[in-house]
C-alpha cells in the first residue's frame, strides 16, 4: 500500500461528512440531528487541518479556522439544546414532526 497522503485523510473526512448527512436525513429526533451536525462540523475541521499541514505548512490559517469552528460549534450546541429543552416543555416531544405550528 502507498504511504499515507492527503487523499487518505480527505477520504476519511468525506466519509464522515456523508455519514453525518445520512443521520441528518434519516433521524427525526432533534438531539440526534444535532449529533449529526456535530459529525459534519468535525469532518470540516479535519479538512482544514489536513490542508494546512500538507499544502500550506508555512502558515497556520487552517488551524485557526478549525479552532474558531470548534468555538462556534460549542456556542451553537448550547443554543440548540436550550431551544430543544424549551420545545420539550411546550410540546412534550422533540420529534421534528410535532413542531409544525410555524409551518403554515
Amino acid at each position, binding site marked *: 500500500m502507498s504511504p499515507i497522503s492527503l487523499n487518505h485523510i480527505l*477520504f476519511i473526512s468525506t466519509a464522515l461528512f456523508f455519514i453525518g448527512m445520512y443521520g441528518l436525513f434519516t433521524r427525526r429526533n432533534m438531539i440526534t440531528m444535532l449529533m449529526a451536525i456535530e459529525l459534519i462540523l468535525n469532518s470540516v475541521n*479535519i479538512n482544514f487541518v489536513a490542508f494546512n*499541514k500538507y499544502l500550506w505548512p508555512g502558515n497556520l490559517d487552517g488551524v485557526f479556522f478549525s479552532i*474558531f469552528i470548534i468555538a462556534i460549534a460549542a456556542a451553537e450546541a448550547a*443554543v440548540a439544546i436550550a431551544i430543544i429543552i424549551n420545545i420539550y416543555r411546550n410540546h412534550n416531544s422533540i420529534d421534528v414532526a410535532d413542531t409544525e405550528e410555524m409551518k403554515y
Partner: protein
Amino acid sequence: MNANDIIFYLLGAFILVNGILAMTNRKIFRAAIFLLFSLIGVAGLYFWMHVEFVAAVQIIVYVGGIVVLIIFSIFLTQQTGQDMPKPNKMRMLFSALAVLFGAGFTYMLIRNHGFIGDGNNQFDVSPQRIGEQMLDTEQSGYALPFEVISILLLAAMIGSIVIALKSKAQEA
C-alpha cells in the same frame, strides 16, 4: 507499511465505524456514546497529524463539553431505555443512495484533482506560535476574530439562558 500507516488505518476505521453506529443506533443514549468515541478518534487523528493543540482543544471542548451537554439534554427529554421509532424504509433507502452517490462523486473529484504534498515538510504548530498569531494585530494576526468570537460566545450563553428560562406565566 510501517507502524505510522497502521495507526492511521486503525484511527480511520475507528472514527468511521463509531460514526456509522452513532447515526444508526436506535437507542439514543448509545448513539451519544458512539458519537463520543468518534470524536475521540478525530482527536487521535489530530495527534497523528502532530497538531497537538487542536487535538487538546477537540478533547476539551467536544468530548468534555458538547457530548456531556448532549447527554444531559437526553436525560432531560427522553425515556433513555426505549428504542427510537424506526425510520421510514423508503426514506432510509433513498438517503443511503443519495449519501453513497454524494460520497462517491466527491471522492472522485478529490482523487482526480491530484493533491501534491506528502506531509514530510516542517509544520510548526507550537502553542506559543498559535498564541502569538492569535493576539497579533498585524497583517496575519487573528486579534479581531478572537474578540468577535468572544462576544459571540457571550451572546450565545446569555441567549441560551434566556431561552431555557421558565417564564412566570408558564409556571402558573
